[in-house]
């Protein structure tokens, strides 16, 4: 039997600020626990060495304003690189599955990056997904976001991508950051139903989550048939997490992973650094490696402490029915949207960057392509922390882009170069794996 790949990158020399939840201490006790258990010495586990993601790896997903180097910290580049190391280990069949225990996290980072949102600069899973597609030709994937916070960054990045099934269960957005992830957020017009949100009431227990796993998540994965399942593995649903209000246990997380059987898991949030993280991380490794975890428990674990209320179970049951129906309607809805015959589908919104207090204004136009999921044009403006205001225009080709969209998108970029408006113009050409930046002021173009 092949081992489980583990990369442990605690970034012991990086913090957002000395007392911030995302600080050096976050994975310290996890380190102590993993090392003391000696789990990395076991034949079931193989430990890997981190590497840095390149600016090109990041540009496959993001438009970093003004560029990757000045926007993204080295810590984030290592974190994303670690996810890619796990992807390589898995795809090259060195391991049966893989778990990146890394920080900083990534699932709040969206396509356009003006700064840090929800402790994230860049989206580790998304960088890994586009790397998997480019390097290994993977097309269909599922991301199950098990963090207590809605994975709004991952949702936004894959919003218009029908080949990525993004499922997020999280504490109800009316009670927790980032305040999104409601049942009516189902994906873009050509990718409807491949974004599925499962908002849960505060204090939901293991029982509730396992009902959702068994009756919604697993059936959807069965029907979607992804080539790869990724667990965006936050650990803040734990009963002791200081930033959220749920009632999951370490064992609950272990069982979840036993059921989900992710090919690759990537750590996201989780800020109960002493009481939860050491035990949940152990539990996930053990579950993925097939090691019996019945002897694993938190110091204050009490099996009778949390009991799911009948009322909440009723809510969960109706939620599951509702979302399963939405998922099963997806192809029908997409077809109807296509039939409307619009050339572009436009939307506008504001995006708040909580870590740095930035407000971005964005307009997105999706080509309603009859043959593929369409290319995206995004115009975005934001006053950065430095006081400088940026307005940029971004063109993104999906990985499964049709030749017509590709030609139009490239032509759009050339046309825009001739009549520049904002500060920067970007072309994300995933077909050619070429990422262009055009600086309007100097007329300088760089290609990654």
């Amino acid at each position, binding site marked *: 039997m092949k081992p489980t790949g583990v*990369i*442990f*990158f*605690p*970034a*012991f*020399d*990086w913090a957002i600020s*000395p*007392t911030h939840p995302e*600080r*050096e*201490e976050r994975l*310290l*006790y996890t*380190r*102590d*626990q993993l*090392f*003391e*258990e*000696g*789990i990395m*010495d*076991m034949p079931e586990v193989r*430990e*890997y*060495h*981190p*590497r*840095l993601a390149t600016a090109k790896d990041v540009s496959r997903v993001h438009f970093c304003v003004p560029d990757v180097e000045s926007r993204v910290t*080295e*810590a984030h580049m*290592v974190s994303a*690189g670690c996810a890619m190391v796990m992807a390589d280990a898995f795809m090259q069949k060195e391991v049966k599955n893989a778990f990146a225990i890394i920080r900083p996290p990534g699932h709040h980072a969206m396509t356009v990056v003006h700064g840090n949102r929800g402790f994230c600069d860049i989206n580790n899973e998304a960088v890994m997904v586009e790397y998997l597609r480019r390097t290994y030709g993977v097309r269909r994937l599922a991301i199950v976001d098990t963090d207590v916070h809605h994975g709004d960054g991952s949702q936004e990045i894959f919003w218009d991508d029908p080949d990525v099934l993004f499922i997020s269960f999280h504490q109800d957005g009316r009670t927790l950051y980032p305040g999104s992830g409601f049942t009516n957020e189902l994906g873009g017009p050509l990718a409807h139903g491949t974004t599925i949100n499962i908002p849960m009431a505060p204090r939901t227990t293991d029982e509730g989550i396992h009902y959702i796993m068994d009756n919604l998540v697993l059936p959807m994965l069965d029907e979607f048939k992804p080539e790869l399942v990724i667990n965006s593995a936050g650990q803040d649903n734990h009963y002791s997490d*200081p930033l959220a209000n749920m009632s999951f246990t370490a064992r609950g997380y272990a069982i979840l992973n036993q059921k989900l059987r992710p090919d690759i898991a990537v750590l996201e949030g989780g800020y109960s650094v*002493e009481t939860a993280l*050491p*035990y949940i991380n*152990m539990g996930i490794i*053990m579950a993925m490696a097939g*090691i*019996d*975890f*019945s*002897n*694993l*428990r*938190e*110091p204050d674990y009490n099996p009778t402490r949390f009991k799911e209320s009948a009322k909440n179970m009723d809510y969960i049951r109706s939620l599951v029915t509702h979302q399963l129906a939405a998922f099963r309607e997806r192809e029908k809805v997409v077809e109807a949207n296509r039939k409307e015959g619009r050339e572009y589908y436009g939307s506008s919104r504001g995006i708040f960057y909580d870590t740095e207090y930035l407000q971005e204004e964005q307009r997105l136009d999706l080509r309603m392509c009859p043959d593929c999921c369409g290319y995206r044009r995004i115009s975005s403006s934001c006053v950065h922390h430095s006081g400088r205001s940026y307005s940029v225009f971004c063109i993104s080709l999906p990985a499964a882009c049709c030749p017509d969209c590709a030609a139009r998108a490239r032509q759009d970029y050339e046309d825009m170069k001739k009549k520049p408006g904002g500060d920067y113009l970007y072309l994300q050409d995933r077909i050619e794996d070429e990422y262009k930046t055009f600086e309007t002021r100097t007329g300088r173009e760089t290609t990654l």
Partner: protein
Amino acid sequence: MLIGIDVGGTYTDGVLFSEGSVLLSVKHPTEENDLEGTLLSVLDELLARAGRADVRRIVLSTTLVTNLLATGRGERTALLLLPGSGLPFSAYRISPDTYFLKGGIDFRGRQIEAPDAKEVEEVLKKVHDSGIDRVAVAGKFSNRNDAHERMVEDRARSLYPHMDVCTSNEIAGRLNFPRRAVTCYYTAMTMREWNRFADGIEAAIGARSPRSDVHILKADGGTTTLEASRKRPCETVFSGPAASTMGTMALSRESLNAVSVDIGGTTSDISLVIEGLPLYASKGALIGGHLTHINSFAVRSIPLGGDSRVYEESGELRVGPMRLGPAACLGGAEPTVTDAFNLLNGLGLGNADASREKLQAVAGRLGVSLEELCGKIADEVVDRLERNIEEMFGLWEDEPAYKVWEVVHRRKFELHRVIGIGAAAPAIIPMLAAKMGVEHFLHRYSPVANALGAAVARPTLAVEVHVDTGRRTYTGSPGGLKGTVEKRSFQLEDARELALDCLKEASRERGLADYAGEAHVYLEEQFNVIRGFTQEGKLFDVGVQIAPGFIHEYKGVA
């Protein structure tokens, strides 16, 4: 004058060394059943040559403990584990006599579950009733709080005073409970035999050369006093390769990145030296299939040596891995690697005609000329060595990293020099070094590098302290160090000072005080403990060590 003796599996080598010269080297076959006798016969020859001169220090490297553990001849030893929550108990397949006890400690040394005194007594009785009188006790996170291990130890000592009891926190203080348990288990298993041997040696040397300090070479290439080794016999495993590597370093003497290749008859041992310091096995010595907390050199042994047989099989040239006897030029029946190099480089070793005759037969079967064959054999040997060396670089470069800095400044091994030892080294090493584009180094003392390495190696000692200012405690290794920190504004400098004080104290206890001043810091970590946006304390991990090196009076070889 200095004496170094390396008791190896086949031969025991000894040197008498003074003012840069080997005055006498002695080589005797090792009598496996009488290591003490072999050792003393070598010692007597060396002492006879020393005459009335004062032999200040005698360093011994022996295979006693290695043999006991590797051959599974250790006495039955009970392992009492207190694993608490975590991996299933089935993960701890270490001793056939393993017993599990209640009790749990967490990473900050807090008690999660109390041990059960009644259960402890019942288990001890079972151990006693099954005729076992050696006991190892290991608890998870006992390096952060040794109370549970102590409690079991105290019960055992008071109920069964004849038992040998070892606790894991005393043997090894680093994180990794299974490795700590194994190291403690092996210590309990070998302690009595080692002490018997130490008694014999102490008496014998006391009678012959009473003014000599007696040291034992450890796996980490450093020495410890015979007295201090009594508590930690396991540290003496694998001292043979350590002796060789220390010997090559003593001869080459420069702070370079080097690879040392010890080419023996059947195998070649490769070890890396990084900026003048030998590379350790990152996971500790592997003994009997178990990883331990014993620092040992990362030595890769490959089945390729001077006596590796050269033959033809299905039209292909084969080199090794078997050894069927010595080289043809030295009277062997089959041609070997040494024969090929003998001809290729005109070494004039033994009967060169025999080399030629036997190799010609192989060349004939392969349909190539003798010159071509010798060239092919040499290429194959050099390629295989190079490949293994490069894999070792790669493994070192790919060690896990836990800091951004380490990943951004990724380490890269740049080789400066290849150092050769062993009889076949002069023939092979220059070619290998040329292929790798670096210089080679051979020395006339290479054949006795192991004994010389033992003779001039200095003592080593590493101390690690873990300070938790929130709980106002510190613990440390080795030897179950612990105490309280009173200072409110305890900082990294204080932790460093504490570690150095602990090292000084430990080196005094072990008779190594002369070298305490040479300790340096090799590990430094600090973390703020924040709860709800306020700081509750700090955690420090500081490691200081007297690294492997050479004794003060060693100034190189003449």
